[in-house]
């Protein structure tokens, strides 16, 4: 039963991955013609040179042919070479990946660690002052533009603090340009971007934990547990929280793609050399092999995240049938 469910979901995932790469390529294809903007205007290049250059990169093929050979190569672990600097795309991805993971994993872990207790407090003290404060906080967190929050934090903690001669936080990059790179330096650089990113997760998940907890606590089995004289602590944590967290698994799984793309804007604001910014900058330069590589990689994560969340959910919650 579970196997069949997994197999069906896997098949659907493959279709989705193929569809996504195809759509990406169709979009990129329109810009392919002008690979390296202005190449046609270079007087030092003869028309046959340009034709040869384009042929070398496979740009004279129709896009479906290019797509099929790209796909074939990717299946053999070859993401091709960057259109801009000729280096293998996979090197770029692997070089940027650790930075992105450092930022997003920190944000997600911080988000979970803070949002679950906050959500539980909100649910247990429903209608209290702390509950209201939590609501206001998360409603506000939803409405703040991430990039602006980033700018404001830089304005306050980097610029203004520096003006006042106080210890200030670095406003961008993963490490200091000179002599940096040790753990303390990295952590210092991580504080501002991770705060911005985790605030988003925090407002999302704390609301969710709260409502999930409220729902679970109104279930019959919780009443039964109370009726048979179980201590409130055990009721809340053993029967309540454990079951309330099951839907959160799905929600966190859905954020897996955010590991790459969710941080893009934060990466841009804080000049963080991550995957999202790589895709952004390379897309502006029409480097479509790199963009295809990152999008493929990210989509793989999206699909894997959804799949993982579905399977975990089905295992954790026996009420779910593998339909």
């Amino acid at each position, binding site marked *: 039963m579970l196997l069949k469910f997994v197999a069906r979901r896997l098949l659907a995932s493959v279709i989705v991955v193929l569809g996504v790469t195809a759509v990406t390529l169709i979009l990129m294809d329109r810009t392919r013609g002008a690979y390296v903007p202005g190449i046609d205007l270079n007087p030092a290049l003869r028309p046959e040179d340009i034709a040869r250059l384009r042929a070398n990169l496979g740009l004279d093929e129709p896009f479906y042919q290019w797509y099929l050979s790209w796909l074939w190569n990717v299946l053999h672990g070859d993401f091709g070479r960057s259109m801009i600097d000729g280096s293998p795309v996979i090197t770029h991805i692997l070089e940027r990946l650790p930075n992105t993971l450092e930022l997003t994993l920190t944000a997600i872990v911080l988000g979970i660690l803070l949002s679950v207790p906050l959500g539980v407090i909100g649910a247990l003290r429903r209608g209290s002052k702390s509950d209201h404060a939590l609501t206001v906080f998360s409603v506000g967190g939803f*409405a703040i533009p991430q990039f602006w929050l980033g*700018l404001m934090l830089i304005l306050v903690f980097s610029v203004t603090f520096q003006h006042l001669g106080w210890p200030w936080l670095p406003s961008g990059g993963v490490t200091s340009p000179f002599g940096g790179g040790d753990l303390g330096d990295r952590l210092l650089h991580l504080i501002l971007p991770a705060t911005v990113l985790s605030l988003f997760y925090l407002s999302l998940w704390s609301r969710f934990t709260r409502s999930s907890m409220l729902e679970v606590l109104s279930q019959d089995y919780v009443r039964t547990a109370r009726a048979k004289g179980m201590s409130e602590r055990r009721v809340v944590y053993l029967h309540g929280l454990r079951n309330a967290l099951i839907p959160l698994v799905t929600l966190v799984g859905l954020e897996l793609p955010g590991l790459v793309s969710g941080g893009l804007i934060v990466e841009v604001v804080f000049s963080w050399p991550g995957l999202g910014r790589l895709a952004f900058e390379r897309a502006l330069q029409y480097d479509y092999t790199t*963009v295809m590589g990152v999008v493929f990689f990210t989509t793989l994560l999206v699909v894997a995240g959804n799949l993982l969340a579905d399977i975990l959910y089905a295992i954790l919650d026996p009420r779910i049938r593998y339909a």
Partner: protein
Amino acid sequence: MLDPTSLPEIELPGSPFEGDTSRPAQSFWNESWERLRANRIGVAAGVLILILALIAIAAPIFSLVLTHFDPTRQHLIDNFRPPGHPYLLGTDELGRDTLTRLIYGGRVTLGVASLTVVLSLTLGTTVGLLAGYYGRWLDDLLMRIVDVFLAIPAIFLFILMSILFRPNAFTLAAIIASVGWGGVARLVRGEVLSVKQRDFILATRSVGAKDLRLIVRHLLPNVLPILIVAASLGVGQIILIEAALDFLGLGIQPPTPSWGNMLTNAESYFFHSGWLVVFPGVTIFITVLASNLFGNAVRDAFDPRLK
């Protein structure tokens, strides 16, 4: 049978079964409207949005009467003026009046947001109705397409499409809607699947109604409440996305002012003109906050699944 809790209890105006109890006859819409009006925060948020929209529509009047400046006219001598007189909220690097630009930026933001909502609702509803009503292979095909669009990391889709179509207000709305329609389609399809099973559809069919009539006259009114809810909950997100794209330089292009692109170069002025960073952001924040609060109130009032 379907799970009865998932079925919306909707009474259409003029239903013959009204008025049989002590309560005066109330249509679904009247009832929802009453509930919405009783929500004080929601009403306040709605009024605030209305005011912002009016200011945006009347932008030329405001710049004539209140600020006396043009949004794109440069006063190079007066650049980086702090808030005060005559520049109420100061000026930017080219000496353009911040308040005037904020007011005009509201036109862009609110215009793009409403257009996006219309586009994604239209496409999403059409796809959802067709997929849900006809089912079978059409359902499979359309829903796989939806899956693909929802699986592409949205931000990449936005970036690629913005590079492809140099964005103006209309293409920008289309770009944002290209992601939004998928969710609407899923929502509508789910609702149609449940409404389709109900007796009144069978009855309508049995008196000879054609597919088109069934879909337009009977299914569409039944999915209308969740559409209203989806629309009002979506506006805040759309405004945030639009602002972010403008900020990245992928949205509305200068010199047309928008709340997002007013922040694009903000980092260069940090050291001397912090207010240039503060005002557009606060404006976005307040607008999104009001939209979200209003959206929540609308959901509480209109969502048939919440009763």
